[in-house]
Protein backbone atom coordinates (compact mmCIF):
# COMPACT_ATOMS: atom_id res chain seq x y z
CA UNK A 1 0.00 0.00 0.00
CA UNK A 2 1.51 3.30 -1.03
CA UNK A 3 -0.02 6.30 0.57
CA UNK A 4 2.71 8.78 -0.10
CA UNK A 5 3.73 8.75 -3.73
CA UNK A 6 7.10 10.05 -4.62
CA UNK A 7 6.71 12.70 -7.25
CA UNK A 8 9.93 14.57 -6.71
CA UNK A 9 12.24 11.92 -8.06
CA UNK A 10 11.82 13.22 -11.59
CA UNK A 11 13.02 16.68 -10.67
CA UNK A 12 16.06 15.35 -8.88
CA UNK A 13 19.35 15.26 -10.76
CA UNK A 14 20.39 11.66 -11.36
CA UNK A 15 23.41 11.14 -9.08
CA UNK A 16 25.15 8.65 -11.37
CA UNK A 17 25.65 10.87 -14.42
CA UNK A 18 29.19 12.11 -14.12
CA UNK A 19 29.22 13.98 -17.42
CA UNK A 20 28.37 17.48 -16.11
CA UNK A 21 31.14 17.20 -13.54
CA UNK A 22 33.94 16.22 -15.89
CA UNK A 23 34.61 19.80 -16.93
CA UNK A 24 34.95 20.92 -13.36
CA UNK A 25 37.14 17.96 -12.49
CA UNK A 26 39.60 18.72 -15.30
CA UNK A 27 39.72 22.29 -14.13
CA UNK A 28 40.35 21.11 -10.56
CA UNK A 29 43.08 18.80 -11.85
CA UNK A 30 44.79 21.68 -13.65
CA UNK A 31 44.58 23.79 -10.51
CA UNK A 32 46.07 20.99 -8.41
CA UNK A 33 48.91 20.70 -10.90
CA UNK A 34 49.54 24.43 -10.68
CA UNK A 35 49.62 24.31 -6.86
CA UNK A 36 52.04 21.37 -6.93
CA UNK A 37 54.28 23.31 -9.32
CA UNK A 38 54.16 26.29 -6.94
CA UNK A 39 55.18 24.08 -4.01
CA UNK A 40 58.09 22.59 -5.96
CA UNK A 41 59.21 26.08 -6.96
CA UNK A 42 59.12 27.24 -3.32
CA UNK A 43 61.16 24.19 -2.34
CA UNK A 44 63.73 24.90 -5.06
CA UNK A 45 64.05 28.51 -3.90
CA UNK A 46 64.53 27.34 -0.30
CA UNK A 47 67.28 24.91 -1.31
CA UNK A 48 68.99 27.56 -3.44
CA UNK A 49 68.99 30.09 -0.58
CA UNK A 50 70.28 27.43 1.79
CA UNK A 51 73.08 26.51 -0.63
CA UNK A 52 73.96 30.21 -1.11
CA UNK A 53 74.17 30.78 2.66
CA UNK A 54 76.51 27.79 3.04
CA UNK A 55 78.60 28.90 0.05
CA UNK A 56 78.97 32.38 1.57
CA UNK A 57 80.74 30.65 4.47
CA UNK A 58 79.21 32.82 7.21
CA UNK A 59 79.04 29.88 9.59
CA UNK A 60 81.33 26.83 9.81
CA UNK A 61 80.22 23.86 7.71
CA UNK A 62 79.89 21.74 10.89
CA UNK A 63 77.10 23.99 12.18
CA UNK A 64 75.34 24.67 8.88
CA UNK A 65 75.85 21.80 6.42
CA UNK A 66 74.91 22.20 2.77
CA UNK A 67 71.84 20.50 1.21
CA UNK A 68 74.31 18.10 -0.39
CA UNK A 69 75.81 17.22 3.01
CA UNK A 70 72.36 16.51 4.41
CA UNK A 71 71.49 14.39 1.38
CA UNK A 72 74.73 12.49 1.88
CA UNK A 73 73.94 11.96 5.58
CA UNK A 74 70.46 10.82 4.55
CA UNK A 75 71.86 8.26 2.10
CA UNK A 76 74.50 7.14 4.58
CA UNK A 77 71.90 6.68 7.31
CA UNK A 78 69.71 4.73 4.92
CA UNK A 79 72.30 2.23 3.66
CA UNK A 80 74.87 -0.26 4.87
CA UNK A 81 78.39 1.08 4.27
CA UNK A 82 81.74 -0.35 5.35
CA UNK A 83 79.86 -2.98 7.33
CA UNK A 84 78.08 -0.29 9.36
CA UNK A 85 74.34 -0.36 9.21
CA UNK A 86 72.86 3.15 8.81
CA UNK A 87 73.21 5.22 11.98
CA UNK A 88 73.81 3.49 15.33
CA UNK A 89 73.29 0.09 13.71
CA UNK A 90 69.83 0.95 12.39
CA UNK A 91 68.72 2.33 9.06
CA UNK A 92 66.93 5.68 9.07
CA UNK A 93 63.65 4.02 8.06
CA UNK A 94 64.03 1.65 11.00
CA UNK A 95 64.52 4.57 13.39
CA UNK A 96 61.48 6.22 11.87
CA UNK A 97 59.43 3.00 12.00
CA UNK A 98 60.18 2.50 15.71
CA UNK A 99 59.15 6.10 16.46
CA UNK A 100 55.99 5.79 14.35
CA UNK A 101 55.11 2.62 16.18
CA UNK A 102 55.49 4.46 19.51
CA UNK A 103 53.36 7.32 18.20
CA UNK A 104 50.75 4.84 16.99
CA UNK A 105 50.60 2.89 20.26
CA UNK A 106 50.66 6.06 22.38
CA UNK A 107 47.90 7.78 20.41
CA UNK A 108 45.96 4.51 20.26
CA UNK A 109 45.92 4.15 24.04
CA UNK A 110 45.16 7.87 24.35
CA UNK A 111 42.13 7.48 22.06
CA UNK A 112 41.04 4.32 23.86
CA UNK A 113 40.97 6.19 27.16
CA UNK A 114 40.39 9.74 25.92
CA UNK A 115 37.22 9.15 23.88
CA UNK A 116 35.22 7.44 26.67
CA UNK A 117 36.63 9.96 29.15
CA UNK A 118 35.56 12.84 26.91
CA UNK A 119 32.10 11.31 26.48
CA UNK A 120 31.69 11.11 30.27
CA UNK A 121 33.03 14.64 30.79
CA UNK A 122 30.65 15.85 28.11
CA UNK A 123 27.49 14.37 29.61
CA UNK A 124 28.11 13.98 33.36
CA UNK A 125 28.35 17.44 34.90
CA UNK A 126 30.03 16.44 38.24
CA UNK A 127 32.73 14.53 36.33
CA UNK A 128 33.31 17.57 34.14
CA UNK A 129 33.78 19.78 37.19
CA UNK A 130 36.46 17.45 38.58
CA UNK A 131 38.19 16.17 35.44
CA UNK A 132 38.16 19.16 33.13
CA UNK A 133 40.75 21.16 35.14
CA UNK A 134 42.85 17.98 35.38
CA UNK A 135 42.80 17.56 31.60
CA UNK A 136 43.70 21.22 31.10
CA UNK A 137 46.53 20.90 33.68
CA UNK A 138 47.93 17.92 31.81
CA UNK A 139 47.62 19.68 28.48
CA UNK A 140 49.74 22.63 29.54
CA UNK A 141 52.66 20.51 30.80
CA UNK A 142 55.68 20.22 28.49
CA UNK A 143 56.52 16.51 28.00
CA UNK A 144 60.14 17.02 29.09
CA UNK A 145 58.82 18.13 32.48
CA UNK A 146 57.25 14.80 33.32
CA UNK A 147 59.74 12.61 31.47
CA UNK A 148 62.05 12.51 34.53
CA UNK A 149 59.19 11.30 36.69
CA UNK A 150 58.27 8.62 34.15
CA UNK A 151 61.88 7.44 33.98
CA UNK A 152 62.00 7.17 37.79
CA UNK A 153 58.77 5.20 37.81
CA UNK A 154 59.06 3.06 34.70
CA UNK A 155 62.79 2.83 33.97
CA UNK A 156 64.36 3.48 30.57
CA UNK A 157 62.73 0.85 28.38
CA UNK A 158 59.70 1.13 26.20
CA UNK A 159 57.07 1.91 28.83
CA UNK A 160 58.10 5.46 29.88
CA UNK A 161 58.16 6.46 26.19
CA UNK A 162 54.65 5.11 25.58
CA UNK A 163 53.42 6.69 28.81
CA UNK A 164 54.82 10.05 27.77
CA UNK A 165 53.06 9.90 24.41
CA UNK A 166 49.78 8.79 26.01
CA UNK A 167 49.92 11.69 28.47
CA UNK A 168 50.71 14.11 25.65
CA UNK A 169 48.02 12.80 23.27
CA UNK A 170 45.18 12.19 25.72
CA UNK A 171 44.15 15.76 26.65
CA UNK A 172 43.38 16.98 23.11
CA UNK A 173 41.32 13.84 22.41
CA UNK A 174 39.36 14.08 25.67
CA UNK A 175 38.82 17.82 25.29
CA UNK A 176 37.69 17.55 21.65
CA UNK A 177 35.33 14.67 22.50
CA UNK A 178 33.79 16.50 25.45
CA UNK A 179 33.26 19.67 23.42
CA UNK A 180 31.83 17.69 20.50
CA UNK A 181 29.39 15.75 22.68
CA UNK A 182 28.16 18.99 24.24
CA UNK A 183 27.78 20.50 20.80
CA UNK A 184 25.51 17.76 19.43
CA UNK A 185 22.41 19.52 18.03
CA UNK A 186 19.57 19.43 20.57
CA UNK A 187 17.24 18.81 17.62
CA UNK A 188 18.73 15.38 16.97
CA UNK A 189 18.73 14.43 20.64
CA UNK A 190 15.07 15.44 20.89
CA UNK A 191 14.18 13.48 17.76
CA UNK A 192 15.89 10.40 19.20
CA UNK A 193 14.08 10.84 22.53
CA UNK A 194 10.77 11.09 20.68
CA UNK A 195 11.58 7.72 19.11
CA UNK A 196 12.02 6.19 22.55
CA UNK A 197 15.81 6.31 22.93
CA UNK A 198 17.03 5.87 26.53
CA UNK A 199 20.17 7.44 28.02
CA UNK A 200 22.50 4.66 26.88
CA UNK A 201 21.32 4.54 23.28
CA UNK A 202 21.24 8.36 23.22
CA UNK A 203 24.92 8.39 24.19
CA UNK A 204 26.14 5.57 21.98
CA UNK A 205 23.79 5.83 18.97
CA UNK A 206 23.25 9.58 18.78
CA UNK A 207 25.78 11.67 20.71
CA UNK A 208 28.84 9.57 19.84
CA UNK A 209 28.24 9.35 16.06
CA UNK A 210 27.12 12.99 15.92
CA UNK A 211 30.38 13.95 17.64
CA UNK A 212 32.53 11.67 15.49
CA UNK A 213 33.76 14.30 12.99
CA UNK A 214 35.15 16.48 15.79
CA UNK A 215 36.50 13.46 17.69
CA UNK A 216 38.49 12.46 14.61
CA UNK A 217 39.83 16.00 14.36
CA UNK A 218 40.87 15.69 18.01
CA UNK A 219 42.69 12.43 17.28
CA UNK A 220 44.44 14.04 14.30
CA UNK A 221 45.62 16.89 16.50
CA UNK A 222 46.75 14.33 19.10
CA UNK A 223 48.85 12.50 16.50
CA UNK A 224 50.50 15.84 15.74
CA UNK A 225 51.23 16.42 19.41
CA UNK A 226 52.60 12.89 19.79
CA UNK A 227 54.84 13.68 16.82
CA UNK A 228 56.24 16.76 18.49
CA UNK A 229 56.68 14.84 21.76
CA UNK A 230 58.43 11.78 20.35
CA UNK A 231 61.88 13.43 20.42
CA UNK A 232 61.35 14.22 24.10
CA UNK A 233 60.19 10.64 24.71
CA UNK A 234 63.37 9.30 23.12
CA UNK A 235 65.73 11.54 25.10
CA UNK A 236 66.71 8.67 27.35
CA UNK A 237 67.74 5.38 25.72
CA UNK A 238 65.99 6.37 22.51
CA UNK A 239 67.93 4.28 19.96
CA UNK A 240 66.45 2.90 17.80
CA UNK A 241 64.09 5.80 17.23
CA UNK A 242 64.24 8.94 15.15
CA UNK A 243 64.40 11.14 18.27
CA UNK A 244 67.18 8.99 19.71
CA UNK A 245 69.02 9.20 16.42
CA UNK A 246 68.85 13.01 16.48
CA UNK A 247 70.04 13.04 20.11
CA UNK A 248 73.05 10.84 19.33
CA UNK A 249 73.93 12.83 16.24
CA UNK A 250 73.80 16.03 18.28
CA UNK A 251 76.18 14.54 20.81
CA UNK A 252 78.80 14.00 18.06
CA UNK A 253 78.08 17.32 16.31
CA UNK A 254 76.71 15.54 13.23
CA UNK A 255 74.52 18.44 12.23
CA UNK A 256 73.79 16.92 8.82
CA UNK A 257 72.28 13.81 10.43
CA UNK A 258 70.24 15.99 12.80
CA UNK A 259 68.78 17.92 9.87
CA UNK A 260 68.17 14.71 7.87
CA UNK A 261 66.29 13.32 10.89
CA UNK A 262 64.21 16.48 11.27
CA UNK A 263 63.28 16.39 7.59
CA UNK A 264 62.32 12.69 7.89
CA UNK A 265 60.02 13.49 10.83
CA UNK A 266 58.40 16.41 9.02
CA UNK A 267 57.85 14.54 5.75
CA UNK A 268 56.37 11.48 7.45
CA UNK A 269 54.11 13.84 9.40
CA UNK A 270 52.77 15.35 6.18
CA UNK A 271 52.09 11.87 4.75
CA UNK A 272 50.37 10.71 7.94
CA UNK A 273 48.20 13.82 8.12
CA UNK A 274 47.10 13.33 4.51
CA UNK A 275 46.25 9.68 5.26
CA UNK A 276 44.24 10.81 8.25
CA UNK A 277 42.26 13.28 6.16
CA UNK A 278 41.46 10.38 3.82
CA UNK A 279 40.25 8.30 6.76
CA UNK A 280 38.03 11.21 7.85
CA UNK A 281 36.51 11.47 4.38
CA UNK A 282 35.61 7.77 4.47
CA UNK A 283 34.52 7.56 8.12
CA UNK A 284 32.43 10.74 8.30
CA UNK A 285 31.20 11.38 4.76
CA UNK A 286 28.37 13.58 6.06
CA UNK A 287 30.79 16.17 7.43
CA UNK A 288 29.86 19.61 6.11
CA UNK A 289 26.73 18.38 4.36
CA UNK A 290 24.17 18.81 7.11
Amino acid sequence: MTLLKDTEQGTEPAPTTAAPHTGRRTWAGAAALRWTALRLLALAVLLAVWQAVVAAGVWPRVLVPSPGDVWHAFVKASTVHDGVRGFSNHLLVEHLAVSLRRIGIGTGYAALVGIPLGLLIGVVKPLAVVLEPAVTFLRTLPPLAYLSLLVIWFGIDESPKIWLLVIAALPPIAAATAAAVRGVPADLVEAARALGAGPVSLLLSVRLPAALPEILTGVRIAVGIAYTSVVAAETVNGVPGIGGMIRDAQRYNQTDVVIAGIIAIGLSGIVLDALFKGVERVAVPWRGRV
Partner: protein
Amino acid sequence: MSPTEATSPAETTAPASDIELSGISVRYGTAKAPVTAVADVSLTVDRGEFVVLVGPSGCGKTTLLRLVAGFQQPAGGTVKVRRKVGVVFQQPRLFPWRTVGGNLSFALARHGVVRTERAARTEELLSLVGLSGMARRRTWELSGGQQQRVAIARALAAEPQILLMDEPFAALDALTRERLQEEVRTLAAVTGTTVLFVTHSAEEAVLLGSRVVVMAAGPGRVIDEVPVPLPREATTDVAALRGDPGFAVLRTELAAVTRDAATA
Protein backbone atom coordinates in the same frame (compact mmCIF):
# COMPACT_ATOMS: atom_id res chain seq x y z
CA MET B 1 1.59 -1.06 8.79
CA SER B 2 -0.91 -1.83 11.45
CA PRO B 3 -1.71 1.30 13.40
CA THR B 4 -5.30 0.54 12.37
CA GLU B 5 -5.49 -1.89 15.27
CA ALA B 6 -5.61 1.14 17.52
CA THR B 7 -9.18 1.79 16.38
CA SER B 8 -10.38 -1.78 16.89
CA PRO B 9 -13.72 -1.99 18.77
CA ALA B 10 -12.14 -3.28 21.98
CA GLU B 11 -10.03 -0.16 22.34
CA THR B 12 -12.65 2.41 21.45
CA THR B 13 -14.48 1.57 24.68
CA ALA B 14 -11.58 3.15 26.60
CA PRO B 15 -11.68 6.93 27.34
CA ALA B 16 -12.64 8.71 24.14
CA SER B 17 -9.98 11.37 24.42
CA ASP B 18 -6.33 10.85 23.53
CA ILE B 19 -4.97 14.19 24.72
CA GLU B 20 -6.26 16.38 27.55
CA LEU B 21 -4.66 19.71 28.37
CA SER B 22 -6.37 21.60 31.18
CA GLY B 23 -5.54 25.00 32.60
CA ILE B 24 -2.10 25.00 30.99
CA SER B 25 0.24 27.93 31.58
CA VAL B 26 3.85 28.15 30.43
CA ARG B 27 6.37 30.74 31.53
CA TYR B 28 9.82 31.60 30.23
CA GLY B 29 12.48 33.94 31.49
CA THR B 30 13.84 34.48 34.98
CA ALA B 31 11.95 34.29 38.25
CA LYS B 32 12.18 38.06 38.55
CA ALA B 33 11.00 38.81 35.02
CA PRO B 34 8.80 35.93 33.90
CA VAL B 35 7.22 35.99 30.44
CA THR B 36 3.91 34.18 30.18
CA ALA B 37 4.03 32.28 26.89
CA VAL B 38 0.78 30.38 27.36
CA ALA B 39 -2.02 31.35 29.75
CA ASP B 40 -4.80 29.01 30.90
CA VAL B 41 -5.22 26.88 27.79
CA SER B 42 -7.45 23.83 27.83
CA LEU B 43 -7.72 21.49 24.88
CA THR B 44 -9.06 17.99 24.39
CA VAL B 45 -8.28 15.85 21.36
CA ASP B 46 -10.49 12.82 20.84
CA ARG B 47 -9.50 9.51 19.31
CA GLY B 48 -9.16 9.65 15.56
CA GLU B 49 -9.52 13.43 15.48
CA PHE B 50 -7.31 15.57 13.27
CA VAL B 51 -6.89 18.78 15.27
CA VAL B 52 -5.00 21.67 13.75
CA LEU B 53 -3.56 24.46 15.91
CA VAL B 54 -3.34 27.65 13.90
CA GLY B 55 -2.19 31.10 14.91
CA PRO B 56 0.48 33.77 14.54
CA SER B 57 4.11 33.36 15.62
CA GLY B 58 4.55 33.38 19.38
CA CYS B 59 1.02 32.21 20.18
CA GLY B 60 2.35 29.11 21.86
CA LYS B 61 1.08 26.49 19.40
CA THR B 62 4.44 24.74 19.13
CA THR B 63 4.81 25.00 22.93
CA LEU B 64 1.53 23.09 23.37
CA LEU B 65 2.77 20.41 20.99
CA ARG B 66 6.04 20.14 22.92
CA LEU B 67 4.11 19.72 26.16
CA VAL B 68 2.16 16.83 24.65
CA ALA B 69 5.40 15.30 23.35
CA GLY B 70 6.88 15.57 26.86
CA PHE B 71 9.78 17.79 25.74
CA GLN B 72 8.89 20.39 28.34
CA GLN B 73 6.72 20.80 31.43
CA PRO B 74 4.00 23.41 32.07
CA ALA B 75 4.25 25.92 34.92
CA GLY B 76 0.65 25.17 35.75
CA GLY B 77 -2.14 22.84 34.64
CA THR B 78 -2.13 19.18 33.71
CA VAL B 79 -1.16 17.29 30.57
CA LYS B 80 -2.70 13.89 29.93
CA VAL B 81 -1.60 11.83 26.95
CA ARG B 82 -3.31 8.47 26.83
CA ARG B 83 -1.58 6.63 24.00
CA LYS B 84 1.76 6.37 22.26
CA VAL B 85 3.04 9.52 20.58
CA GLY B 86 5.14 10.01 17.44
CA VAL B 87 6.58 13.38 16.40
CA VAL B 88 7.32 14.93 13.00
CA PHE B 89 9.23 18.21 13.19
CA GLN B 90 9.51 21.15 10.82
CA GLN B 91 12.99 19.96 9.84
CA PRO B 92 13.43 16.24 9.05
CA ARG B 93 16.06 15.83 11.82
CA LEU B 94 17.41 12.67 10.22
CA PHE B 95 20.64 11.12 11.52
CA PRO B 96 23.22 11.85 8.79
CA TRP B 97 25.56 9.07 9.93
CA ARG B 98 22.88 6.52 9.13
CA THR B 99 21.40 5.63 5.78
CA VAL B 100 17.68 6.11 5.07
CA GLY B 101 17.08 2.51 6.15
CA GLY B 102 19.36 3.01 9.17
CA ASN B 103 17.23 5.89 10.37
CA LEU B 104 14.15 3.68 10.22
CA SER B 105 15.83 0.72 11.91
CA PHE B 106 16.95 3.01 14.75
CA ALA B 107 13.26 3.72 15.43
CA LEU B 108 12.32 0.05 14.93
CA ALA B 109 15.01 -1.08 17.39
CA ARG B 110 13.80 1.40 20.05
CA HIS B 111 10.29 0.09 19.40
CA GLY B 112 11.46 -3.46 20.14
CA VAL B 113 11.35 -4.90 16.63
CA VAL B 114 13.88 -7.76 16.48
CA ARG B 115 16.87 -7.40 14.19
CA THR B 116 15.76 -10.06 11.71
CA GLU B 117 12.47 -8.31 11.01
CA ARG B 118 13.82 -4.79 10.67
CA ALA B 119 14.78 -4.96 6.99
CA ALA B 120 11.33 -6.10 5.92
CA ARG B 121 9.59 -3.51 8.11
CA THR B 122 11.91 -0.80 6.77
CA GLU B 123 10.94 -1.63 3.20
CA GLU B 124 7.24 -1.62 4.16
CA LEU B 125 7.55 1.81 5.75
CA LEU B 126 9.47 3.17 2.79
CA SER B 127 6.86 1.97 0.33
CA LEU B 128 4.22 3.57 2.54
CA VAL B 129 5.83 6.97 2.00
CA GLY B 130 6.65 6.33 -1.66
CA LEU B 131 10.40 5.75 -1.25
CA SER B 132 10.63 2.04 -2.11
CA GLY B 133 14.14 0.76 -2.64
CA MET B 134 15.83 3.83 -1.16
CA ALA B 135 16.88 2.20 2.11
CA ARG B 136 20.59 2.32 1.26
CA ARG B 137 20.65 5.94 0.17
CA ARG B 138 22.41 8.59 2.23
CA THR B 139 19.98 11.04 3.80
CA TRP B 140 21.72 14.12 2.41
CA GLU B 141 21.38 12.76 -1.14
CA LEU B 142 17.60 13.15 -0.89
CA SER B 143 15.55 16.23 -1.71
CA GLY B 144 13.89 18.17 1.12
CA GLY B 145 10.54 16.52 0.39
CA GLN B 146 12.06 13.05 0.35
CA GLN B 147 13.83 13.72 3.65
CA GLN B 148 10.56 14.77 5.23
CA ARG B 149 8.94 11.57 3.90
CA VAL B 150 11.70 9.58 5.63
CA ALA B 151 11.02 11.56 8.83
CA ILE B 152 7.33 10.66 8.60
CA ALA B 153 8.17 7.00 8.00
CA ARG B 154 10.58 7.08 10.96
CA ALA B 155 7.86 8.50 13.22
CA LEU B 156 5.43 5.82 11.99
CA ALA B 157 8.00 3.05 12.61
CA ALA B 158 7.24 3.11 16.33
CA GLU B 159 3.54 2.61 15.51
CA PRO B 160 2.26 5.68 17.35
CA GLN B 161 -1.47 6.07 17.88
CA ILE B 162 -1.05 9.83 18.17
CA LEU B 163 0.97 11.78 15.63
CA LEU B 164 2.25 15.25 16.53
CA MET B 165 3.25 17.35 13.54
CA ASP B 166 4.95 20.72 14.01
CA GLU B 167 4.70 22.70 10.74
CA PRO B 168 6.10 19.67 8.91
CA PHE B 169 5.64 21.13 5.43
CA ALA B 170 6.63 24.75 6.10
CA ALA B 171 10.14 24.34 4.71
CA LEU B 172 9.04 22.61 1.49
CA ASP B 173 8.25 24.05 -1.92
CA ALA B 174 4.56 24.61 -2.75
CA LEU B 175 4.17 21.61 -5.05
CA THR B 176 5.75 19.14 -2.64
CA ARG B 177 3.79 20.65 0.22
CA GLU B 178 0.43 20.13 -1.54
CA ARG B 179 1.34 16.55 -2.40
CA LEU B 180 2.36 15.73 1.17
CA GLN B 181 -0.73 17.45 2.61
CA GLU B 182 -2.95 15.17 0.53
CA GLU B 183 -0.94 12.13 1.50
CA VAL B 184 -0.95 12.83 5.22
CA ARG B 185 -4.70 13.48 5.10
CA THR B 186 -5.24 10.12 3.43
CA LEU B 187 -2.77 8.40 5.78
CA ALA B 188 -4.65 9.66 8.84
CA ALA B 189 -7.99 8.59 7.37
CA VAL B 190 -6.74 5.10 6.48
CA THR B 191 -4.96 4.39 9.75
CA GLY B 192 -7.33 6.25 12.08
CA THR B 193 -4.35 7.86 13.79
CA THR B 194 -5.09 10.81 16.07
CA VAL B 195 -3.24 13.87 14.79
CA LEU B 196 -2.32 17.15 16.45
CA PHE B 197 -0.96 19.41 13.74
CA VAL B 198 0.57 22.88 14.07
CA THR B 199 0.57 25.39 11.21
CA HIS B 200 0.26 29.11 10.57
CA SER B 201 -1.55 28.57 7.27
CA ALA B 202 -5.37 28.85 7.33
CA GLU B 203 -5.57 26.91 4.07
CA GLU B 204 -3.54 24.01 5.44
CA ALA B 205 -5.65 24.03 8.61
CA VAL B 206 -8.97 23.75 6.74
CA LEU B 207 -7.65 21.17 4.31
CA LEU B 208 -6.28 18.82 6.95
CA GLY B 209 -8.20 19.37 10.16
CA SER B 210 -11.47 17.88 11.31
CA ARG B 211 -11.34 20.69 13.86
CA VAL B 212 -9.28 23.87 13.84
CA VAL B 213 -8.21 25.56 17.07
CA VAL B 214 -7.29 29.22 16.61
CA MET B 215 -4.75 30.75 18.99
CA ALA B 216 -3.63 34.33 19.63
CA ALA B 217 -0.40 35.64 21.10
CA GLY B 218 0.53 37.84 24.05
CA PRO B 219 -0.05 35.67 26.09
CA GLY B 220 -0.78 32.54 24.05
CA ARG B 221 -4.41 31.51 24.36
CA VAL B 222 -7.21 29.79 22.47
CA ILE B 223 -9.63 32.30 20.95
CA ASP B 224 -11.77 30.17 18.65
CA GLU B 225 -12.58 26.63 17.59
CA VAL B 226 -13.87 25.85 14.12
CA PRO B 227 -15.25 22.44 13.14
CA VAL B 228 -14.50 21.50 9.54
CA PRO B 229 -17.49 19.66 7.99
CA LEU B 230 -15.61 18.41 4.94
CA PRO B 231 -15.59 14.73 3.90
CA ARG B 232 -12.81 12.76 5.62
CA GLU B 233 -13.01 9.32 4.02
CA ALA B 234 -9.83 7.63 2.85
CA THR B 235 -11.26 7.74 -0.67
CA THR B 236 -11.87 11.50 -0.62
CA ASP B 237 -10.35 13.23 -3.63
CA VAL B 238 -8.26 15.84 -1.84
CA ALA B 239 -7.27 17.62 -5.04
CA ALA B 240 -10.95 18.12 -5.91
CA LEU B 241 -11.60 19.30 -2.36
CA ARG B 242 -9.30 22.28 -2.90
CA GLY B 243 -11.67 23.50 -5.64
CA ASP B 244 -14.80 22.87 -3.52
CA PRO B 245 -16.79 26.08 -2.77
CA GLY B 246 -17.33 24.95 0.83
CA PHE B 247 -13.57 24.67 1.27
CA ALA B 248 -13.05 28.14 -0.17
CA VAL B 249 -15.64 29.71 2.20
CA LEU B 250 -14.11 28.01 5.27
CA ARG B 251 -10.61 28.99 4.28
CA THR B 252 -11.61 32.63 3.83
CA GLU B 253 -13.43 32.67 7.17
CA LEU B 254 -10.56 31.07 9.01
CA ALA B 255 -8.05 33.38 7.35
CA ALA B 256 -10.09 36.33 8.66
CA VAL B 257 -10.17 34.87 12.17
CA THR B 258 -6.44 34.18 12.24
CA ARG B 259 -5.75 37.69 10.92
CA ASP B 260 -7.75 39.07 13.82
CA ALA B 261 -5.84 36.77 16.15
CA ALA B 262 -2.59 38.20 14.87
CA THR B 263 -3.66 41.75 15.72
CA ALA B 264 -5.53 40.84 18.92
